């Protein structure tokens, strides 16, 4: 009896395995490369500002308050889709939003921002893409959440959607503020 049911059991196990694969694939982006930087200090950078190229902004200047670093480019179509979400949903969160104009011509970036509006507190430019490589950027848009100590807490690969803001970004920001509240209480 057991021997006769064995092929059926193996078949069902296989169905289960493949079904799990389908389920997993529909809930995960398979091309996403998880960042090894999470929980580690953000790579140091010093980059010129888009609107004042003679001035620079470095990672050290940003210590003390958490911020979001949004990698974008005027050449990037998905960044256009993400743009209204940055303006409508990220900006109201009150967290500092830094734009990293990646592998782009400053003039093109200025035109892009002039056309769609500027959701960023500061825009810095990484023309040759070296800082992007340091951050492990491989597409745009990508967004990093970096805490007050300069530690990378979260990375979003691809555009923000209302769903992943609600399910991923907001809990991560809440963690940061509760950790800070604990420190103050101590």
């Amino acid at each position: 009896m057991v021997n006769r049911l064995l092929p059926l059991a193996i078949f069902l196990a296989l169905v289960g395995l493949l079904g799990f694969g389908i389920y997993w694939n529909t809930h995960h982006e398979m091309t996403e490369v998880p960042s090894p930087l999470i929980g580690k200090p953000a790579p140091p950078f010093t980059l010129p500002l888009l609107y004042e190229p003679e001035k620079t902004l470095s990672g050290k200047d940003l210590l003390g308050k958490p911020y979001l670093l949004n990698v974008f480019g005027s050449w990037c179509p998905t960044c256009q889709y993400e743009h209204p979400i940055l303006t409508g949903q990220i900006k109201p969160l009150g967290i500092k939003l830094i734009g990293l104009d990646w592998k782009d011509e400053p003039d093109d970036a200025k035109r892009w921002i002039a056309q769609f509006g500027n959701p960023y507190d500061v825009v810095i430019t990484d023309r040759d893409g070296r800082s992007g490589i340091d951050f492990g950027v491989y597409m745009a848009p990508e967004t990093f959440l970096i805490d007050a100590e300069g530690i990378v807490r979260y990375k979003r690969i691809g555009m923000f959607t209302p769903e992943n803001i609600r399910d991923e970004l907001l809990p991560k920001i809440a963690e940061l503020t509760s950790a800070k509240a604990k420190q103050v209480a101590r």
Partner: protein
Amino acid sequence: MRMVSVRAIRGRLLSLFASGLVAPSPPSALSMGERAGVRGKWWAVTHRFSSATRHPLTQPSPPSYRWGRGLSLAACFFAVAMPLVFLCAPPAHAIDPLPFKDRAEEVRFQKLAKQLRCLVCQNQDLADSDADLAKDLRKQVYDMMQSGKSDDEIKDYLVARYNDFVLYDPPFKPGTWLLWFSPFAFVLIGVFVVARILRSRAQQAGGVRPADTESGDDW
């Protein structure tokens, strides 16, 4: 002039047959056309598809003949178009004009780039990919080579930014043991299952001891 080109096309067709793209017609079909004195005429190729008893010059073309002509025209089209496609295709290797100081350095670079994955088109290596980021990463690898970094240092640099995924060969560590060992585990399971089946069959066959079956060659 025309004869030459027909021969060329026919040669091309034959090589297509040889490569298995088109099913070959029996060799006698060709000699049939030649026996009928149609060698070198433009429809000589077509003739292979027509029935062996009919001569194309004396008979009005039956449907099968016209069908054959269409087929051969299609074959000729492919014969002409395929080499063009290959000619127009970009070279397999994305080439940046990197100023290598000697051949050894270039070989080292190519070898290294083959072990690294392009993050954009994720099933291509850095040497092959034409993505913009791959270009930047090749430049980065090149610059690090120039500043005297070893292959391992360059790989570590990229792994620190892009994860182990950037390496084509997953590193051997506790997290990847399942990946490295599971094939052997499955082979062992297979051996175990086969051994069990053989043993039970041997017992059913009556009185033959397992040791005999395993050393014998009844499978």
